[in-house]
C-alpha cells in the first residue's frame, strides 16, 4: 500500500507549493502550521527500534510548538499589525510557483549525486528536506512583509528539522534542544521586533526600513 511516510512527504511538498503561491498571510501561517503537524508525525515513523517514549515525546513537543504555539503567536501579530494581504512581490506569485518546482527539481538532482551512510526512510525525504530549506529561503528573500518573512524562517527551520530527523533518527538530546531553542529565540526576537516596528512606523514593510540608513 501507499507508504505513510511517502504520503507525508508529498504533503510537505504540496504545502511548500501552496505557500509560495498564496497572497493571504493567514493562509501562509496555516500552511506552515500544517507542515509542522506533518513533521510531528514523522518521529513516530522513522524510528529504528519501535515507538519509544522519546519518539512520542518529540512528536508531542513538535506538534505543540510548530503546529500550535508558533502559528498562534504569528496570528496574534497579524491581528495587531492589521495587514491581510501580501503585496505582489517582485517575483510574481505565478512565477514563484514555477520557481518552487524548479527548486524541487534542483533538490532531487543534488541529492541524487550524494551517497548516504545509511538507508533512508523514503527516497523522497532528503530531496524534500533540501527543497523545504530552499523554499523557506525563497520566501524570506522574495516577500516584503515582515510576517511573511518570519513564516519563511519557520519553513526553513522545518526543513532543517526534517534533515536532522532523517540523518540521525536517534537524535542526541543536545541537538533536539538546540533546534527547539533556535526556534524559540527566533520567534521571540522577531515577534518583539515586529511589535516594535509596527508601533514605531505603523507598518511592517521591510522595504521601507531601508530609509533608516543615511
Amino acid at each position, binding site marked *: 500500500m501507499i507508504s505513510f511516510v511517502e504520503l507525508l512527504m508529498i504533503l510537505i511538498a504540496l504545502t511548500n507549493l501552496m505557500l509560495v503561491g498564496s497572497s493571504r498571510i493567514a493562509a501562509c501561517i496555516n500552511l506552515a502550521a500544517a507542515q509542522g503537524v506533518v513533521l510531528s508525525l514523522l518521529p513516530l515513523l522513522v524510528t529504528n527500534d519501535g515507538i519509544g517514549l522519546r519518539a512520542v515525546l518529540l512528536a508531542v513537543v513538535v506538534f505543540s510548538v510548530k503546529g500550535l504555539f508558533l502559528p498562534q503567536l504569528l496570528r496574534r501579530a497579524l491581528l495587531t499589525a492589521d495587514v491581510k494581504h501580501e503585496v505582489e512581490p517582485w517575483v*510574481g506569485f*505565478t*512565477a514563484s510557483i514555477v520557481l518552487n518546482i524548479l527548486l524541487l*527539481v534542483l533538490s*532531487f*538532482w543534488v541529492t*541524487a549525486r550524494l551517497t548516504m551512510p545509511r538507508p533512508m526512510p523514503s527516497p523522497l525525504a532528503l530531496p524534500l528536506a533540501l527543497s523545504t530549506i530552499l523554499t523557506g529561503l525563497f520566501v524570506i528573500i522574495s516577500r516584503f512583509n515582515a510576517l511573511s518573512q518570519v513564516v519563511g524562517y519557520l519553513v526553513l527551520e522545518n526543513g532543517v528539522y526534517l534533515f536532522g530527523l532523517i540523518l540521525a533518527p536517534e537524535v542526541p538530546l543536545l541537538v533536539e534542544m538546540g533546534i527547539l531553542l533556535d526556534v524559540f529565540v527566533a520567534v521571540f526576537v522577531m515577534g518583539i521586533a515586529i511589535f516594535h516596528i509596527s508601533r514605531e512606523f505603523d507598518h511592517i514593510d521591510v522595504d521601507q526600513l531601508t530609509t533608516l540608513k543615511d
Partner: protein
Amino acid sequence: MNLLLVAVVLLFVSGTLALVAGGFPALSKVLGAGGSVAGCALGLVAAVGALTRASTEALGYNWDVPYGSFSVALDPLSAWFVLPICGICGLSAIYGAKYLDAYAERKSRGAHWFFFNLLAASMLMVITARNGVLFLVAWEVMSLASYFLVVFDDDDEGVLEAGRTYLIATHLGTAFLLGFFIVLGQRAGSLDFAAIAAAGPPDAATAGLLFLLALVGFGTKAGLMPLHVWLPEAHPVAPSHVSAVMSAVMVKVGIYGLVRALILLPPAPARWGGLLIGIGIVSGILGVLFALAQHDLKRLLAYHTVENIGIITLGLGLGLLGVSFRAPLVAVLGVSGALFHVLNHAMFKGLLFLGAGAVAHATGTRDLDLLGGLSKRMPWVAGAFLVGAVAIVGLPPLNGFASEFLIYLGAFGGEELSDPGQAVPCLLVIPALALMGGLAAVCFTKVVGVVFLGEPRSEQAAGAHRPGLLMSLPMLVLAAGCLLCGIAPQGVVVLLVPVVSQVVRMDLATFSAQVENAMVPLRWISLVASVLIGLALALAVLRKVLLSGREVATSGTWGCGYTRPTARMQYTSSSFAQPTILFFMPLFRIRQTLIAPEGLFPQRAAFSMETSDPAKELLYLPAFRWVGRLLAGLRWLQRGHLHIYILYIGVTLVALLIWYVEIHIP
C-alpha cells in the same frame, strides 16, 4: 549532381538575361520567372533522385583561389535542403510575376529578377559546396542578393533602415563563420570538407570553440534568439514573395550550416545538445509571444519564423542529447522531427507569407486593425491561409502536427533515461512544446479571425479585390502540400531516412530498429488524419440532409442589444491578444499611450500599444552605441582629400613589399 549544376547555371543565366532585358518588362518577367521555375524544377528532380537513391555524388574542379577548390557534392543532407529551396523559390517566382506588376512604373524588374535567381542559385551552391572558400563566397553572394531584394522598395526610408540592419547583422554572422573556417582549416591544412573530416577530431576545447562559432554564425542567419533582431525588420519590408523565400528557405540554410558543422565536428557532448534545447525553448516561447504582440501582419509572421526555428533547434538538440546519452530512440526521433519540420515549415510559412502578400496587395495595408472580412472577397486566399494557419499551430491532420509529433515522441523517449540529469532536458521539451502550440493557437486564431473573418474594419479592406490566378495558384499548391504531408507523413519520412542516418552516425542495426519505431506511429497518424477528414465530410453531409426541406434563413449578427453595431466594435488584434500579453507582461517592454474617455458623453479616446523587442533594446542598440562612440575616435583618418587616401594605399603597398621580402627571401 550534374543536373543540379545545370539548374544553378540556368538560374544564373536567366537572371542575367532578365537584367539585360530590363527595358522590356514583359520579356524580363518571362525570362526571370520562367528561368526560375525551370531551374527549380530541375533542382527538385535532382534532389528527389538523390534522396531515393540515398547516394552521394561529388564533383570537383580546380579553382585558382588559395585554399579554394570548386568541389561540390549532393549527399542526402544537401538533397533534403534542396527540396524546400527549389519548391518555394519556384512557386514564389510564379507569384512574384504577378505581384510585381504593382511596381511596374517605378522600379526596374529586370534587376529584381536577376537578384532573385541569383539568390536561388547561391543558396543551392551553399548547400552543395564542399570547400570552405566556395561555401563562404556563395554565402556572401546569398546575403548580398537578398539585401538587394529586401531594399527593392527603396523609396521608403524605413525600408532602407531595415536593409541596413539586415546587412550589418548578416555580416556579423559571416565574420563568425570566417573564424569557424579559419580554425578548422588551420587544423586540417586545407579547407576542403573531406580533408577536414579526415583530419581527425579536435580536442574538447577547440571543439567547443568551433561549436560556438558555428552556432553564432549560422544562428544569426537562422534567426535564433537573441541573434534574431534583423528578422522582424527585414522580412516585413521585402516584397512578399521575397519574404516568403527568406523566411521559409533562407533561414533553413542557416540550419543546414549548423547541421553540417555538427557533422564535421566530433560527436557532441551533452552540453551542446542541452544548449541547443535551451536556445530552442527560449526562441520558441519568446518568438511566439512577441508575434502575439504585433499588429503588422508580416512582422507577426516573421516572429513566428523565430518560433519555428526554435522548434527545429529543439529537435536537433534532442537528437544530439540522444546521441551523447546513447539513447538511439531519442536521437533518431529528435533529428527526424527537426528535419521534417524544416520541410513543413518551409511549406506553410511560404504559404502564409504569400497570403499576407496577397492581402497587402489587395488592400494596400499590413495593419491588422484595418483589415477584416477578407474571406468573402478573396475566398481561395482565405482558404489556403487557413490551411497554413492550422498547419503552423501544429494541429492534426496537417503536416505541422506530424513533425511536432516526432519531436514529442523523441522527448518522451527521454523518459527511459534513468538519470534525472539526463532526463530533465528531454522532458523540459514536452511542456515547452505544448505551451508553444497553445500560444501559436492564440496568435493564429487572432490573425485569421481579424484579417479574414468578421466585417471589414476600414474602407481599404472593404474594397479588396481578388488576386489573380498566378498569385493564388502557388498558395493552393502549398496548401495541398501541407495537407498531403499531413495525411501521408510516412511517405515523406521514408525520404528522410538516409539524411537522418548521416546526421546521427549510428550503426545500421540500431538505426533501422529506431526508424521502425518512428514509422509505426506515423502510419497511425496518417490513418487518423484520413478518418478525421472523412468524419468531417460525413457530418457535413448529415447536416445537409437534416437541413434539406427546412427553413435556412440569414440575418445580421445579433448585436446583443446594441442598435447600431459597427465594424469597429469588433475585437481588434490588440484586444484579442491582451489577456495573454497581460499574463506574460514581465517579458515585454510595452509602451502604452492612453487618452481615456471622460465624462458622460466622451468625445475623444485613443489607445495604442507598442511592444519593442527587448533583445534589440537591451543588447544590440547599447552595444552599437558603445562601438560607435569608440570608433568616433578614429574619425581623423578620413580627411576627405583624395591624396591622403592614395597615400594610405601607397604606404600599405610599400609595407607589404618590405614584409614579403623579409619573410620570403632569405
